[in-house]
């Protein structure tokens, strides 16, 4: 039985990164991002990568780290508003950008991982995102053809994992991670808690281990982007 467990994020990426590659990176904002694998990807020195991720991190954290070092050639995202360096590079023509509606992006990843080459959606019909794409009428309503996405590598973050690569996510840190785990030719997962096979409830597993090639336990900063609270009422 091949060993999927790696000692750290850096060794977990060894031999599977190359210049010009396409990488999927899980997370929504800074929630549920594979923060250790992003740092390891930066340290690998890989260049000219295309990154598929809902967002582009913030300055100096998450994918913002890979922007600072100019390792990203192109982003495929739905919303990139939280990153000044991103805006600077984009406006200077140094960075390509493809916007996908968030649901279309999620479904493109799901489709890619599930062997679906394309699908028709009503999202974006009549807008810029449908320009140049085939449309088809079903029951009197127009749908646009979108394609599945497969990346060379997907990096995802889960809460718990076992040595077989089975993953369980926590709360809204799940987001894009399950689909992206299925849609990388190689998938590396980082988890907060790594346990022996048999210790996770098989009925509770979100991502079956078949999708995960390598797994690593990490320490996490888990930065909060917008800290919003309410006052405690006095007892």
């Amino acid at each position: 039985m091949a060993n999927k467990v790696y000692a750290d994020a850096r060794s977990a990426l060894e031999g599977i990164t190359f210049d010009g590659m396409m990488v999927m990176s899980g997370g929504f904002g800074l929630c549920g991002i594979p923060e250790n694998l992003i740092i390891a990807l930066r340290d690998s020195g890989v260049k000219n990568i295309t990154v598929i991720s809902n967002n582009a991190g913030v300055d100096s954290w998450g994918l913002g780290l890979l922007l600072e070092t100019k390792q990203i050639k192109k982003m495929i995202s739905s919303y990139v508003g939280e990153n000044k360096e991103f805006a600077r590079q984009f406006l200077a023509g140094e960075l390509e950008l493809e916007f996908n509606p968030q649901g279309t992006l999620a479904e493109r990843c799901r489709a890619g991982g599930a062997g679906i080459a394309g699908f028709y959606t009503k999202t974006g019909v009549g807008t810029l995102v449908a320009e140049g794409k085939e449309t088809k009428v079903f029951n009197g309503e127009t749908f646009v053809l979108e394609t599945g996405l497969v990346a060379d590598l997907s990096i995802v973050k889960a809460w718990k994992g076992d040595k077989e690569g089975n993953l369980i996510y926590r709360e809204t840190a799940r987001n894009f991670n399950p689909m992206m785990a299925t849609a990388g030719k190689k998938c590396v997962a980082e988890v907060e808690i790594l346990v022996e096979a048999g210790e996770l409830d098989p009925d509770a597993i979100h991502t079956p281990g078949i999708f995960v090639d390598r797994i690593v336990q990490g320490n996490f900063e888990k930065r909060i982007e917008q800290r919003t609270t309410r006052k405690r009422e006095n007892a």
Partner: protein
Amino acid sequence: MPWTREQLAQRAAKELRDGFYVNLGIGIPTLVANYIPQGMEVTLQSENGMLGMGPFPYEGDEDPDLINAGKQTITALPKTSYFSSADSFGMIRGGHIDLSILGAMEVNGRGDLANWMVPGKMVKGMGGAMDLVAGVKRVVVVMEHTSKDGASKLLKKCSLPLTGVNVVDLVITDLGVFAIDKHGEAPMRLLELADGVSLDEIKAKTEAPFVSA
């Protein structure tokens, strides 16, 4: 007097119904959650992967794994469920969400909506807005009636890149409320005027044709 932000949110809350699953956009739509009528059960969806969104946490209780679509820390409720982005947008596109309340830069009389892009400015992206307007059963826009320079935002034809075509059912502005026949040919219908706003004033500030109900 035109309606204030809070009054706009209060008016939008009248579109809620008992048992509704609702997605609220960023800005004034978020405030609608403060005006859910007593005794009415409404479940808020957050498109990053949550049904049953609770209020902000108490100071010190923030959980980085638990955020809303605006990336704000929030809390769960006893009825909460979590799911992936694919399942979340399956709910949205699949017509399982009853109501979406969101902001806009322009709306036309046919229910076309523009709210994601101003050419020449840094574009942040559409996020989930295109999926929401395409898939949710009923789409309500809350916006200022005119732009900062006084131009009507209710137009015959939107000038900005669209978020969706024939998608808006109701527009609530600081001057009044309009119903849109998004799949038909009928002009917009003015349903209500804000207190103290005259028919002449709203006519002067509305480019799209409309009839008074």
